[in-house]
Structures are given as structure tokens and as C-alpha cells.
């Protein structure tokens, strides 16, 4: 690893706070990439980011076509029914070409790679969720204090 003389990164803690496709994937790619480089990784899902680990929702993560200037789509077109589903399916096809797996498969792969996966207790309580609402890869539901404990020595990334 070429680190230009700097100490290499040893550990990352990645917070996922958004539940859109573009909110979820960067964090998953970074967590997986960290493990591929031998860097310890922890994923902490909070607020709408929880959708990526909720068993009934994780297969329906969609790209936002409204309020998303990066889509280069006029807002009035973005609101057309089916537009988000269409954009999502197009994007998923492109991702498949790059070997980027669907959310569920990706979460399994990352967890099998040794990345710990946690849900934020405050958000879980706020949305009235329980441990069995989540996919089996979720290690625990933890409060923010414990997140910081587990992040000792890590670079914390908020996405």
C-alpha cells in the first residue's frame, strides 16, 4: 500500500443515515473496500439508513428522482409515477456490470468479510422496530455511546 509515508488507516466506522440507493451504496462500497484492504470496518445504520438492513425493505432501495440535482431530471418529470423505479432499474443494471451486488447480497458479503453491522437504538425506538425486523447480519442494536466505544481508534465517516 503506498501511503506516502503516512501511517496506513487501520480501522473505519461508517455511519449510514440515508435510505436512498445513492445514500446507501457509497457506504457499502467503502466498508467492503476497507475489508478488501485489510482495514477493520464497522457499519452503523441510523435514521432512514435503517431501510438498508430492514428485512422487508432492503430489496426495495430506490434512487430519488425528486430533489436530486445529480439526476439531471426536471422535478416535474421526477414526480411521474414509476420514474424512480425506472431510474433505479437502469442504475442497478449498470451496477451489476461493475459487479456491484444488490443490497441484501452486499450486506451478507460485507458481514462475511468480518465487518460488524449495527443499528442505532434511538432510530430503532423512534420507528418502533425490533431486532427481528432486521436482516440476520445485524449484530446488535446499540446506543450512540456504545458506537463511539466500538469506534475507538477508527476514522469515523458519516454518509
Amino acid at each position: 500500500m503506498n501511503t506516502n509515508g503516512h501511517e496506513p488507516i487501520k480501522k473505519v466506522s461508517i455511519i449510514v443515515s440515508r435510505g436512498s440507493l445513492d445514500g446507501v451504496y457509497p457506504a457499502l462500497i467503502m466498508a467492503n473496500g476497507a475489508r478488501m484492504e485489510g482495514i477493520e470496518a464497522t457499519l452503523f445504520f441510523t435514521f432512514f439508513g435503517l431501510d438498508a438492513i430492514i428485512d422487508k425493505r432492503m430489496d426495495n432501495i430506490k434512487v430519488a428522482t425528486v430533489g436530486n440535482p445529480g439526476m439531471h431530471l426536471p422535478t416535474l418529470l421526477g414526480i411521474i409515477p414509476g420514474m424512480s423505479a425506472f431510474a433505479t432499474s437502469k442504475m442497478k443494471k449498470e451496477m451489476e456490470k461493475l459487479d456491484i451486488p444488490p443490497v441484501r447480497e452486499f450486506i451478507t458479503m460485507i458481514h462475511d468479510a468480518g465487518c460488524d453491522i449495527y443499528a442505532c437504538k434511538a432510530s430503532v425506538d423512534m420507528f418502533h422496530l425490533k431486532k427481528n425486523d432486521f436482516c440476520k447480519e445485524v449484530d446488535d442494536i446499540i446506543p450512540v455511546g456504545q458506537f463511539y466505544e466500538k469506534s475507538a481508534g477508527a476514522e469515523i465517516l458519516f454518509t
Partner: protein
Amino acid sequence: MTTVATETKTLERDADGHIKNISDWNEQIANALALEEGIPVLTERHWAVINFMRKEFQEKGDAPSIRRLTKESGVETKELYALFPKGPAKKAAKIAGLPKPKGCI
């Protein structure tokens, strides 16, 4: 082992320590490269991954992603990380005499 270890020192390497000429590679060199990566013995399971990587590289021109390894090599993610600790795709590519995989996944 000493002679092989000496032999790997004379091999041309890139900045990441991967050997430059695929044609320099053979099984003995793979063993020596594995030792450098802290893997004392290459088992049959290691070889399943190494051989899959070399095949993919020959067919596609790039070493496979961790996802393709997981899905198609017959060795699952957990085992991949157990066989090649701290970065299976990168380490297996190095031992297989291939350049570092370019993909992000």
C-alpha cells in the same frame, strides 16, 4: 526454500510488490510469494482460488472482484478471508503472479 526465496528477490516487481511478468510465475514462486504474505503453506483451497484467478485473468484481462470470487470460485467470502487474511482479492492476485485487481468491489 532458501533458493526459491532468493529467486523471488530477483523478480521484477511493481510498486505494490506484484511480479511484473506473468511468465516469471510458477508454483514454487507462488509458495515463496505466499510466505511473504504470511501464508506458510498453500492448501488445496488456496490453489482453488489462485487457479480461478489466473483463469479469469487470462480470459478477461483483469483479476476478478471479491464478488466474482465469492460467487464463482467455489470458495465463500468467510473462507476467502480465512485463507487470505487482510485482503483476499489483493493477496491471492499477488500470489497468483497477477497485478493488483483494478475493480472497487
